[in-house]
């Protein structure tokens, strides 16, 4: 009976999940329609605010150029996000080693988030030039922080009963970390990952704004200087889609890693 019931349950669950996006889709469509109507009804010049339809049209017409820039940006984003994840995890474990390290390092991490890129930009160009490195650095700088902080908080919040149980069984510090504390921190880690994934594409674009041969950031800047606002918006659209896809990818990973947690979230 349970075998027969399972696929049906899974089916209704995925249906429910799709239905869960209903409000978002309705809101998005409404906003886009409002935008389209406002632009066509008012006298706003398309050079200031193009209509959504014109943006999609421009995106398709220029896809051969935009796709190359998109690939460049995507590459910088995933490499930066990958490094940020490893760095964030490592920092979270480091912060967790002792309260001394935590107190010493944590303020530095916060300070690292306050540095405006505009101050670093000339240095990044002089030291690392126009290639991949400065963009990956900017993405990493943007993304490691939410991961490190969320994961460190998760490690702190380990169930004390489980800790005592492990200690009573003479588990070593690393065994406790690996078997209990890291798995327990995973929900927090994924929360941090989702924030990082959302910021990562923007990070790459900021990095490209600094100086680049190719990429959506450079494309936006060139389009803006050629007075092609519609192309700037087309690039923004691509950025939004990339961010959503990365966000979705992280959610998918979370679903694979923590199926039980996902179930709890849906309730």
């Amino acid at each position, binding site marked *: 009976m349970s075998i027969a019931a399972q696929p049906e349950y899974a089916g209704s669950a995925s249906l429910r999940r799709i239905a869960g996006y209903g409000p978002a889709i309705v809101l998005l469509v409404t906003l886009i329609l409002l935008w389209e109507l406002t632009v066509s009804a008012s006298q706003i010049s398309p*050079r200031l605010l193009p209509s959504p339809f014109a943006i999609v049209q421009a995106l398709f017409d220029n896809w051969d150029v935009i796709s190359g820039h998109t690939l460049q940006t995507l*590459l910088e984003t995933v490499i930066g996000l990958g490094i940020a994840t490893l760095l964030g995890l490592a920092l979270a474990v480091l912060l967790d080693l002792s309260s001394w390290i935590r107190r010493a390092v944590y303020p530095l991490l916060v300070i690292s988030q306050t540095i405006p890129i505009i101050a670093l930009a000339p240095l990044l160009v002089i030291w690392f*030039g126009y290639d991949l490195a400065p963009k990956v650095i900017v993405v990493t700088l943007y993304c490691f922080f939410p991961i490190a902080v969320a994961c460190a908080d998760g490690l702190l919040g380990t169930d004390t009963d489980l800790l005592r149980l492990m200690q009573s069984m003479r588990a070593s510090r690393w065994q406790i970390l690996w078997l209990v504390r890291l798995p327990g921190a995973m929900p927090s880690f994924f929360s941090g990952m989702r924030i990082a994934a959302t910021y990562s594409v923007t990070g790459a674009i900021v990095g490209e704004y600094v100086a*680049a041969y190719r990429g959506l950031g450079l494309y936006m*800047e060139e389009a803006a200087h050629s007075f092609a*606002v519609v192309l700037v918006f087309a690039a923004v659209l691509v950025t939004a889609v990339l961010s959503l896809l990365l966000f979705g990818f992280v959610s*998918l990973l979370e679903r*694979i890693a923590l199926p039980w947690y996902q179930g709890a979230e849906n309730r």
Partner: protein
Amino acid sequence: MNSRARLLLTIALPVILIIVIVGVFVLQQRGATTTTTSSLGTTKTVSLTHMTLALDWTPNTNHTGIYVALAKGWYRNQGIDLQLLPYSSNINPDTLVSTGKADVGISATESVVSDYAIGQPVVSIAAIIQHNTSALVARADSGLDRPRDLDGKVYGGGGAAYEPAVVGEIIKHDGGKGVFKNVTLNVDPIQALKSKQVDFEWIFEGWEGIQAQREGLKLNTFYITDNGVSDYYTPTIIAGPNEIKQKPDLLRRFMAATSQGYEFARAHTQESAQILIDQNKGAFPDTGLVFASQDYLSPRYADPGRKWGLQDAAAWHGYPEFMLSSNGILDASGKPVKSMNFDALYTNQFLP
């Protein structure tokens, strides 16, 4: 799925994603390089000197001669493999040139003078346009009909220290007080005027001026050289003092090809504009603007009968002098500079 499989999958998926993206990227890069090498396979393989040129802005008709020389292979004929460094709003070509990160760059008299004042000297080695085409503009329907009307109005500028000083002098020259509000714009100047965010701006007639015409925006234009400012060069090509000392031959070859490019653009307006468009695929949604701008600029790269690129001592004395006297040039500590050796700012020695 057991926990080990879940863990493996969680780690493997991102790794696969990264590998796939890197793979696609590498494939695409390889595709791009093979096409360029095959198209160049016909030219003789000589050892080329790598050289970088830092652009002052996104590609536009000021750069046409360089793109022409690139497209025609004239840099290669001179043994130069020229790479253009795209414009960045975060670092100016002068800094790249003076730190040796770029061999040459595109700049302007104002920047060259300011660079000298703050101790990052660069030298102008050619004038791209022989006469100044800068103007202050206001909307034709604004009632701002002469420079002195600009008193108390909002000026949308680029944030450089010399701008308010020079604009103030222009207003005073027409009998005004030279007092106005200065805001730094990071948007399209013509759109800012259209939406009445600012009252007047400093534009280049050959680009924004043409854009305004094409968009049907009527402007009151006050050319700055008609209003008490002596003629000067903008943009210019610059090189660093070290470069000039160590690689004079390279610079001479560079200027030979560049000069060839601009001379071609003077003679073949349509064709050179088309080259600029072709070399920057997707950069010009309004190609009509490029052609119109090229029509305007081609005859202005140099006066008829004169070689392209030559710089006169008068231009390198008059305007810099004026900038210093109006306290528009600050040294590294922010104090106005009062004197300077203007002859160190430019040289014609590399022109063919």
